[in-house]
Structure formats: structure tokens, C-alpha cells
């Protein structure tokens, strides 16, 4: 009765592709167990098997020592297994409580007992330190709060084994710290947790044990106290990984992107970008550091033409591109790795091959006299899949079926391959494994070295400090400071991002 969950020699095959090749995962009661592996290693698949979304093709699952067959998520619920999905499954127009009780509503003489439900939700929230307002509308609360609602949903259904699939990928650093705290509270209250994350730091910080898988095979299970990030990275990737990417000093050339007095309103009509000025030169990477919601999204969407700028100008290579249609801006030489890969980056129901020509499908050689040239399209797709190590059964597979990290690699491949004069990379490594991150950083630096301008937006300070040649700190829609990454610290950046002036931050 030592293990609450035992997945023994689990095998899962898609067509001819083996996603899980006899993987064994054993989770002890009251521990936080990390599941670590490259993009496409089969982590989500394994968890979907445990949660009853997929049926295994082999192996055995035991819960608290008893062999079980988890035929659907309801069975998983009954066994006390809850899952917090990476893409939340909440009804936007419902309140927190309504979302939580959906499907297991407490009733009193045939009507929903909302008062009781709210009380129960509030109690649960307090007990685990979640600080969720049971009466708030989902649409009105932050992503971090929405995630907590997902956690409450599983707790409300009586889960004592919680699966988190990349919970921190969508969170700000502050929210991540809070989530860690919540997870500690959960295990203290006797819950067990399986945590999927690509961030080794997080594993070292909160996890007790870690199971590493690579290309569908179980590699090792280790005590976190007895290992270190280097060993974990090497185990999962199968080679040594450099955490900081070596690069030559930048040799900035002429200005490529020049933004003057830009004002952009957000969907609510508030000035999200408020008189912003910024220049990015050829041959340099400018990183934008800032807390989420300070105008980063609106800035990028205005540059790429997805939303209209109120006033100000945006120039590319000296040419005014303000408020041009997106296609004109793309043709002028802008590449864009979007923040939300499902919303903007991919047509999920298209094959991965067709997604590779999403912007260029109408140009030769992909289009000839108005007809698609599939040979050329899939030729290009195969080249990019090879070059960017996109793990997919083949180029005809729907983008939807790829693992999150591999979808991201496909998008990056497409954008870098178009060789734009300005490459905008918004959260380019979100959800990527350490090996892939190293690779992407190298490609960004390579673009720079070839004389291209790169604008990097990231909530990961590590990434901004590591890759950028200059860091522009954005706060309330303005660039409040430009700093040299070699002469700044995370502390200083943190203070600047919170709105304090340069002087107060202790730098002259």
C-alpha cells in the first residue's frame, strides 16, 4: 500500500507510432512526482491514459494497490484522480461556482442549491489557500485564477491524486510561486501530485521524485534530492545541454524597426500602448521584459497589423507600415512567432504540412496559376520537420495531433525559414523542453548574426537576459528603461518591471 498510483509497462500506440513504450510510473502517497521528458516524449499521452481519455494497448494500472480499468474520465473521478489540463475547460460566461459544480450539482427539491455550493467552494478555497472568489465570472478573472478554478474543480469532486499538465507554462513568475505554495499545501493535506513541467528549476524546488521519459520509453526514476538540473537535462535529452547560449557581441547595423509615439487601444478601449518609442537595429536582439498585461500583446499586434494603431508610426527599413493589412506587413519582411499558438499560429485541423505554408501558399513554388503545388508544399514541410526536429508521425498528420512543444517548433521553423528582416518572437519557448529551448535560442542568435533584427517578448527573465543584446522594460504601455543584460540583475529588472524608476532601483 506504498504507492497510490502504479502504471506498469503502459503501452500506447497511434497507428504505427508508439507514443508510450512500456512506461512504468509509480507515485507514492503524499509526494509531488515530476514527469519529465522532451517534447513529444509521451507525457501527456501517459496522463491521458491515467485519466481515462485514452485506452492503453498494454500494461496495467493500479490505484491504491487495486488493479483498475479506467475506461473514461468518470471512472478516473470515482477513483479520486483529477486532472488540470493545460488548456482550461471552463465556461466563460459562468461564475466560478457554476463551473465547479457543473456535472455534480447539489440539488434541493429539484433546484440547484447555489448557496450551499458557494459555501462549499469557499471552504475548499480557504482550506487550500487558493483565494478564489466563488461568485466571480470566469471571463473576468486572470489565467492564474482560472487555473485555480480547475484545481478546485478536481478537489470538489473529491480527487486525492492530482495531475498537472504543464501548469506553469501559462503563468507569470509571481503566479508560479503561488502555485508552488498551493501544491505544497495540497500534499500536506494528504494529496498526491503528478507534475509535468519542462522547467528543471521547478522540479528541483517542489518535487520529491522525478521520472524521466525519452521518446516514449521510461529512462529513470530519481530522488530529486540526489540529482541536479544538469543530470536531469542530460537524461531526458540524451546528451549534455547548455543552459546559456554562447554568442558573440552584437554588431548592430541600420535601424530596421522604428516605433514613434505609438498609441494602441485594447479591446476595452483603454490605451494599452501609450506613446511608446522603440528602435530595433539589424543584427541585434532586443528583449522586451515586463509583467504580463503591460501592453506587450497590443504592441506586437499593432506591428503585425492584427489591430489598428490609434496614432504614432511604425517603420520597417524606413518604410511606413503603420496600419497596413497583415499581408502587406508580412511581405515587407516581418515574421511573427505568436504568443498563442492555437489561436493564431496554426490551423489545427490542417495537416502540419499545409500549416508550413500558411503565409506563403499563394506564392511560387507553392502555387502555380492559382493551383496548389502539393509536391512543393510537402517538400518544404519535410525539410522544416527535419531541420527543426518536429516530432510527428508524418507531414500529413493534423497539427492538432502534435504535442504542444512540437507545434511550437513547427511554427518557429516556418517563421525563421521565411528569413524575415524583423522576427518577432513572443514567448517562443513556452512549453518547450530544455533541448529545444537551446536549439531555438541558437536559431534566434543565428538570425541576428545574419544581420536580421529580432524582437523578443518573454515573461521568462532568464530567457530575456540570456538571449537579448538590449533589454527594453515595458511598463503600462511605455518603454521605461533600456538596459544592458550584462550590466543588470534579475532584481533590478524586477523592480523596473514593477514601475520603479531607474535611480530608485539603485543604478545611475
Amino acid at each position, binding site marked *: 500500500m506504498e504507492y497510490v498510483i502504479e502504471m506498469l509497462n503502459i503501452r500506447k500506440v497511434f*497507428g504505427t507510432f508508439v507514443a508510450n513504450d512500456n512506461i512504468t510510473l509509480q507515485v507514492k502517497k503524499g509526494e509531488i512526482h515530476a514527469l519529465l521528458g522532451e517534447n513529444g516524449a509521451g507525457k501527456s499521452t501517459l496522463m491521458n491514459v491515467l485519466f481515462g481519455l485514452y*485506452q492503453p494497448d498494454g500494461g496495467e494500472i493500479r490505484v491504491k494497490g487495486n488493479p483498475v480499468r479506467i475506461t473514461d474520465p468518470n471512472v478516473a473521478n470515482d477513483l479520486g484522480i483529477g486532472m488540470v489540463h493545460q488548456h482550461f475547460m471552463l465556461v466563460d460566461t459562468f461564475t466560478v461556482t457554476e463551473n465547479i459544480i457543473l456535472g455534480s450539482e447539489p440539488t434541493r427539491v429539484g433546484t440547484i442549491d447555489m448557496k450551499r455550493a458557494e459555501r462549499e467552494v469557499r471552504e475548499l478555497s480557504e482550506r487550500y489557500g487558493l483565494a478564489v472568489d466563488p461568485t466571480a465570472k470566469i471571463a473576468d478573472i486572470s489565467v492564474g485564477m482560472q487555473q485555480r478554478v480547475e484545481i478546485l474543480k478536481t478537489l470538489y469532486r473529491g480527487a486525492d491524486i492530482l495531475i498537472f499538465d504543464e501548469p506553469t507554462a501559462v503563468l507569470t513568475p509571481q503566479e508560479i510561486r503561488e502555485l508552488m505554495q498551493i501544491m505544497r499545501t495540497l500534499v500536506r493535506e494528504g494529496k498526491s501530485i503528478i507534475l509535468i513541467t519542462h522547467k528543471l528549476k521547478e522540479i528541483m524546488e517542489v518535487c520529491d521524485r522525478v521520472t524521466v521519459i525519452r521518446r516514449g520509453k521510461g529512462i529513470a526514476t530519481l530522488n530529486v534530492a540526489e540529482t541536479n538540473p544538469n543530470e536531469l537535462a542530460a537524461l531526458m535529452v540524451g546528451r549534455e545541454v547548455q543552459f546559456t547560449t554562447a554568442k558573440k557581441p552584437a554588431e548592430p547595423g541600420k535601424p530596421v524597426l522604428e516605433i514613434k509615439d505609438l498609441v494602441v487601444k485594447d479591446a476595452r478601449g483603454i490605451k494599452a500602448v501609450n506613446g511608446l518609442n522603440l528602435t530595433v537595429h539589424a543584427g541585434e536582439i532586443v528583449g522586451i521584459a515586463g509583467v504580463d498585461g503591460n501592453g506587450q500583446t497590443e504592441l506586437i499586434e499593432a506591428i*503585425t497589423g*492584427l489591430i489598428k494603431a490609434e496614432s504614432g508610426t511604425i517603420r520597417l527599413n524606413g518604410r511606413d507600415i503603420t496600419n497596413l*493589412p*497583415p*499581408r502587406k*506587413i*508580412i*511581405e515587407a519582411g516581418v515574421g*511573427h512567432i*505568436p504568443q498563442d499558438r492555437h*489561436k*493564431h*499560429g*496554426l*490551423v*489545427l*485541423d*490542417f495537416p502540419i504540412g*499545409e500549416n508550413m505554408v*500558411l*503565409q506563403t*501558399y*499563394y506564392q511560387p513554388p507553392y*502555387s502555380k496559376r*492559382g*493551383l*496548389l503545388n502539393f509536391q512543393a508544399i510537402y517538400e518544404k514541410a519535410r525539410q522544416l520537420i527535419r531541420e527543426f526536429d518536429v516530432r510527428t508521425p508524418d507531414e500529413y498528420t493534423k497539427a492538432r495531433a502534435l504535442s504542444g512543444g512540437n507545434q511550437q517548433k513547427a511554427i518557429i521553423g516556418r517563421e525563421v525559414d521565411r528569413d524575415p528582416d524583423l522576427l518577432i518572437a513572443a514567448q517562443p519557448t513556452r512549453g518547450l523542453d530544455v533541448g529545444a529551448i537551446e536549439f531555438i535560442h541558437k536559431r534566434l542568435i543565428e538570425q541576428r548574426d545574419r544581420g536580421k533584427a529580432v524582437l523578443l517578448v518573454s515573461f521568462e527573465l532568464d530567457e530575456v537576459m540570456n538571449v537579448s543584446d538590449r533589454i527594453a522594460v515595458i511598463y503600462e504601455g511605455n518603454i521605461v528603461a533600456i538596459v544592458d543584460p550584462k550590466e543588470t540583475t534579475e532584481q533590478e529588472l524586477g523592480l523596473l518591471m514593477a514601475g520603479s524608476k531607474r535611480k530608485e532601483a539603485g543604478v545611475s
Partner: protein
Amino acid sequence: MKSNRLQQFLIPLLAVLLGMIAGSIVMLASGYNPIAGFYALVYGAFGDTYYIGETIRQTTPYILTGLAVAFAFRTGLFNIGVEGQLIVGWLAAVWVGVSFDLPKIIHLPLALLAAALAGALWGLIPGVLKAYLKVHEVIITIMMNYIALHVTNAIIRSVLSDEGFKSKPVKESASLHSDFFDAITHHSTMHYGIFIAVAAAFVMWFLLERTTKGFELRAVGFNQHASQYAGMNVRANIILAMVISGAFAGVAGAMEGLGTFGNISTKAGFTGLGFDGIAVALIGGNNAFGILLSALLFGALKVGALEMPSSAGVPTELVDIIIALIIFFVASSYMIRWLLSRWQKGAE
């Protein structure tokens, strides 16, 4: 993999069979002989060359209305206005058909083109409203159906006839009538339109799957945000999709105006061809080849059903129920798929 192919094929057949069983129960319960009933249905659809001709004639507009609905579906739109687009197409075709004296090689294509343009115009309006004002196309297309019906009736009365209820027949040079089919199918109303309908199915497949424009239309249909991000003009594509969908519907009207009837009469209500097109498209999986088959199913049921009251004595109301049951089972074939997968799991 192989068993999947087989399933693709077997499931619709199984669905029809289940529908027939359910229909049999209904007939038995009401005191009719199901064997005689279904014999009449099948005989009435395929029993001799006359019936086959009628079935094909009925299938012709179904193919086109099915394509119209499917084209919109595939591009992310729900075109309930196929009925109205068909009616204006019918009117335009007949109008051109009676008004000119031209060689057939010009007159017939001109009449077809007029029908396509009229349907396209009827699709353009909801398309523009959707693209620029975000008005839902379902609401506008329903309204457009009524406008089409009444405007057409008014034009038939005041322009195409002298306060009558029927236009003159279209000129021979614009007619789809076929002496050849007439001869081999014992004077059924089958006409050359079937070739146009099958060609249209090919056009739809080609347009969507092979052309650059089709790539764009499909992309916008699946994900407008990604399409905009990729530089596609989302509004223009929404409008174009409705226009093309409407053009298919308009040609469906031409099948009736230049082929089946050879004229146009005032209508008390809708033809139903456009609404049935929604079911044809869904059952055909919104795919050109599938629509050919599902249109044939609908055509056969519609024509065969006419035989049930006369030769098996089943009252028309009951026939309608039986036909609906068969369609219901085909439409819910995903249920059968689910049952099959349960079965297979149990057998393991």
C-alpha cells in the same frame, strides 16, 4: 486500418437497414405489410427505367443544394438561405430562357450563368452583412428566403405572365430537355442537368482541395484568427464563400427551371429542396463525393415513396414517417459507430 475502410462502407448500409427495421415496426403497428411497403419503395425508385429516370431527375437538384450547403459549411458558414437562392436562380434561368432567341450553345449557358449569378447575389447580401457588421448569416439567410419567395411570385405575375401564375415555357434553345433520356426512360422527366450536377461536385472538390483560393477559404473556415495572422483577408473570404455557395444553389434552381419543369410558377410555399440540402450535405459528410451518394439516397427515397400509397396502400403520412426514420438513422450513424466500437472492445 483495413477494417476501418470496411466500416466506412458498412456503416451507412447498416444505418439504412436499421431505419428500415424501425419503419417496419411502425408499419406493422399500424396494420400494414412492411414487405409490401418496402418493396413498393424500392420498386418506385429503381424498379424500371422510368423510375430510375425519375430518381436521377430528383437527385439532380439535391446534389447542387447539398453542395451549396456543404461549401458554406466547409468555409465556416451556415447557409440556410439555399432555398431562397434556389428560387431566384430558378427565376433568372427561366427569365433568360423565355426572353431571348439565341443559338443553344449560347442560350443555355447564358441561362445557367444567370441562375448562378442570381443565387450568388442572394448569397452576397448575407455575406457582406456578416463580414462587415457581424450579423449572423443564419438570420439574414432565413429572411432572404422569404424575400426570394415573394419577390419571385410578384415578378412571375407581373412580368413573366399576364397576371397569371405560370411563365411561358423556356425556349428549346435554353432547355435541358433530353430526347435521348426521354426515349430510354419511358418519358420520365430526367434531363441533362445530372451532368451539370456531377460536374459541379467535381468543381467544388477541385476548388476547395486543389486551388490556392480554396486553401484560403478552408483556412478561414477553420480558424479566422490564424487566417488573419497569416495575411488572409478574412472578410473577403467570408463574402466569397457565401457567393459561391449561393451560385451552386442558383444552378440548382436552373435544374428545375430549364429541366424538370421548363417554366416557373408562383409558389405558395418553399420547395424544400434547399432545406433538404442541409441534410444531404451533413449525411454526405460535407464532401463532394459523399454528397453525390447522399443526394441519390434522398432522390430515391423521395421518388420511391410516391409508389408506397398506390401499390402497398400505406398512407402518405405514414410514408413520411418511414422516410424520416431512415434519414434519422443515417444521420445518427455516429451512434452506430459508437455501438460498433463498444462491441469490438467487448470482444477483445
